[in-house]
């Protein structure tokens, strides 16, 4: 057991020499920074298509690949809701395709698989955890993680830490309890379950009117977190409290919703928390992936964690204890906060809580950023995040003393546009920005030691110089780019891989003829 706990998590990383992409963010840090350098700033202009493959479902249902692919032992594993594929990473050839039976769960998205030895783990729209044999795509077992009748829906990519398969959950229409679970990789048996809101007698219950409000306070876990093996902490963001926009039945800060939390993966116990939006009323999940940075603050080496939050603030914390180091807005349209308190938390302006006649708030419920992964480059010291400056009118529709579900809505009122921001991680200041002429600004980021930053805008996959924001290369694909680019090495050749709708595109730099 000790051997596995210490060694198993790192086995793929050690064996692959960081040539693969064995977990959601490439490694546990959430940085989406690759050490590969074959594709680099001097040759990126020659980057060209190696292969493109379109994937289809039995029965012809539309496929949208939003998942982060894994690349292990020269095979890619990726998903869309109800589907898992295994593909040869050299040429895009499909090895197997697993299709989950029809069900009533939401097919809004699926973020990918987790892997442990030869076993893959996948969450279904109707909230089952399914294990597949990676060699054949055959189902090994499945276990239920939540009841879809309560409006749970599962989109998260399981994260494998030691012999823990950590599964998150989503769905916020019916005030269901939010939680995080860990399952046994061999049997699927539940190892632990951590509720994101406190129960009777637990710390934090004083931030809710009563136990009932807390138990129905939601706080979902629909995006994976990051992991620090030295501290043995799984650090992730939690979702919004419920009822979402009608807050009269949940006075208080509503811990541990809209928070960055650190969980011991062996016990499921919370070690520290930082609440990014106290008493959220605008659907601003704090699920954006926390990014682990080993940095220097005031001359001292520090273990840090950074998050660009959907609420418009950039947070920098000490990841050993969750203490705040920096809180600063990264969009200039933000209007819901009265400042920052001594603990580094924004102070919500109660005048901007939803009302029956509407209040104008920026960012809108879709946020200043969202679940799309940012990237941190240790080469530049910059944190790259896709951003937007949307406004909307927030209305409360449920004035009952016990509202339910969303209890309100927001209607779009316009945006000042989307931009790629390069933030100095120590100050949160914008070193450079690229304002997009059209399309969503909230896109995934990838940086590499080849001094490149990859992201997308509409159908274009684009390479930037991460130091100054100059565009170096682009390619127009067949549909809007729908996931985050990843990169990997097979047989001495580096590939850049991205999904656009139902297709995967792999690029390489051409080698001179021998």
């Amino acid at each position, binding site marked *: 057991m000790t051997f596995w706990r210490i060694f198993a998590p790192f086995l793929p990383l050690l064996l692959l020499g960081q040539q693969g992409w064995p977990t959601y963010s490439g490694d546990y840090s959430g940085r989406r920074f690759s050490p590969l350098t074959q594709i680099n700033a001097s040759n990126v202009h020659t980057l060209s298509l190696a292969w493109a493959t379109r994937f289809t479902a039995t029965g012809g249902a539309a496929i949208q690949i939003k998942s982060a692919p894994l690349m292990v032992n020269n095979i890619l594993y990726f998903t869309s809701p109800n589907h898992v594929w295994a593909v040869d990473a050299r040429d895009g050839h499909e090895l197997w395709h697993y299709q989950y039976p029809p069900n009533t769960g939401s097919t809004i998205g699926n973020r990918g698989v987790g892997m442990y030895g030869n076993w893959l783990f996948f969450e279904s729209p109707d909230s089952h955890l399914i294990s597949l044999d990676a060699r054949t795509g055959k189902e090994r077992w499945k276990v239920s993680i939540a009841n879809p009748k309560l409006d749970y829906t599962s989109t998260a990519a399981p994260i494998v830490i030691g012999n823990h398969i950590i599964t998150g959950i989503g769905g916020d229409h019916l005030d269901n309890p939010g939680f995080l679970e860990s399952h046994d990789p061999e049997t699927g048996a539940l190892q632990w379950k951590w509720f994101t809101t406190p129960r009777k007698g637990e710390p934090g219950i004083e931030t809710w009117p009563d136990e009932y409000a807390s138990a129905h306070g939601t706080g979902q876990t629909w995006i994976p977190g990051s992991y620090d093996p030295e501290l043995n902490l799984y650090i992730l963001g939690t979702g919004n409290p419920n009822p979402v926009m009608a807050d009269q039945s949940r006075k208080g800060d509503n811990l541990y919703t809209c928070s960055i939390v650190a969980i011991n993966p062996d016990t499921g116990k919370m070690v520290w928390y930082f609440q990014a939006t106290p008493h959220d009323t605008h659907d601003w999940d704090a699920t954006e992936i926390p990014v682990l940075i080993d940095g220097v603050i005031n001359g001292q080496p520090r273990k840090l964690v950074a998050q660009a939050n959907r609420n418009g603030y950039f947070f920098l914390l000490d990841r050993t204890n969750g203490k705040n180091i920096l809180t600063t807005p990264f969009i200039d349209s933000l209007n819901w906060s009265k400042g920052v308190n001594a603990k580094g938390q924004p102070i919500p302006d109660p005048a901007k809580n939803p009302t029956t006649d*509407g209040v104008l708030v920026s960012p809108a419920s879709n946020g200043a950023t969202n679940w799309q992964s940012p990237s941190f480059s240790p080469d530049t010291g910059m944190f790259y995040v896709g951003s937007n400056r949307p406004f909307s009118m927030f209305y409360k529709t449920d004035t*009952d003393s016990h509202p339910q579900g969303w209890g309100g809505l927001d209607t779009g009122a*316009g945006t000042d546009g989307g931009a790629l921001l390069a933030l100095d991680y120590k100050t949160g200041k914008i070193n450079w920005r690229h304002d997009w002429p059209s399309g969503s600004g909230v896109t995934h980021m990838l940086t590499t030691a080849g001094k490149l930053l990859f992201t997308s805008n509409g159908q274009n996959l684009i390479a930037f110089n991460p130091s100054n924001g100059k565009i170096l290369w682009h390619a127009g694909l067949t549909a809007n780019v729908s996931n985050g680019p990843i990169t990997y090495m097979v047989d001495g050749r580096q590939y850049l891989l991205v999904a656009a709708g139902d297709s995967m595109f792999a690029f390489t730099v051409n080698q001179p003829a021998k």
Partner: protein
Amino acid sequence: MRYLTFLLAAMSLSAQEPDTVAATTAALTASKENPAAVERGSKLFQANCAGCHGATAKGGPGAPDLIRSLLVLDDEKGILIAPVLRNGRPDKGMPASNLAEPQIADIVAWLHVQTYAAGHRNTYAFLDVVTGDSKKGEAYFRSKCSSCHSATGDLAGVGKRYEPLALQTRWLLPRGAAKSTVKVTMPSGETVSGVLDRVDDFNVSLRDATGEYRSFSRDVDSPKVEITNPLKAHTDLLRVYSDADIHNVTAYLVTLR
């Protein structure tokens, strides 16, 4: 947003009570339950169940919230709910009812609409948005809006054409407004103008005055691309309005009938 215009009717008999929000007609329609059965079920629920479970079935002292009940949420066609209504739950203090089977079916139909309504935000009914001062709204309109708009010109009768919520939503961000125009200036100084078709960092395309499609490759500032968005005046005001300004302007525009 189309559903906004038909969201007003309240169904429940108890709608006059301040502490209730009835499921909307949109929820009733979308739930596909029989409206007559739901109407009967509403009356039966108020007469037989509301005393303990509350008028909106959200629970009362000692009686659970039925909208968050797994049994109710898991039910289809009364398979789970009907036995509870027939037999009660004597161990938990709920008596058996004397309801006939068709009455039980009506209550089941009503409960299904309530859970559907709670869980489907696209069926929510907005409440009154006309809370502002129309005189102040008129003054604001004259100072900030009248350079482009006129109460007797383009906006004449606008209060008649839209429900107040749709009106507030649309005046903040007009839908279907004129498209952006674009002027492209070549390094030679030649210019081409027209209605913007698409633009990104690499290409820009337009339809010129003759309807011809023109497209150009872009490389940073060459050619020079100038886009005029007719909605920019609206977007710029988003940082200027107070919420009171918004409510006042809506209250004024509602009077333009």
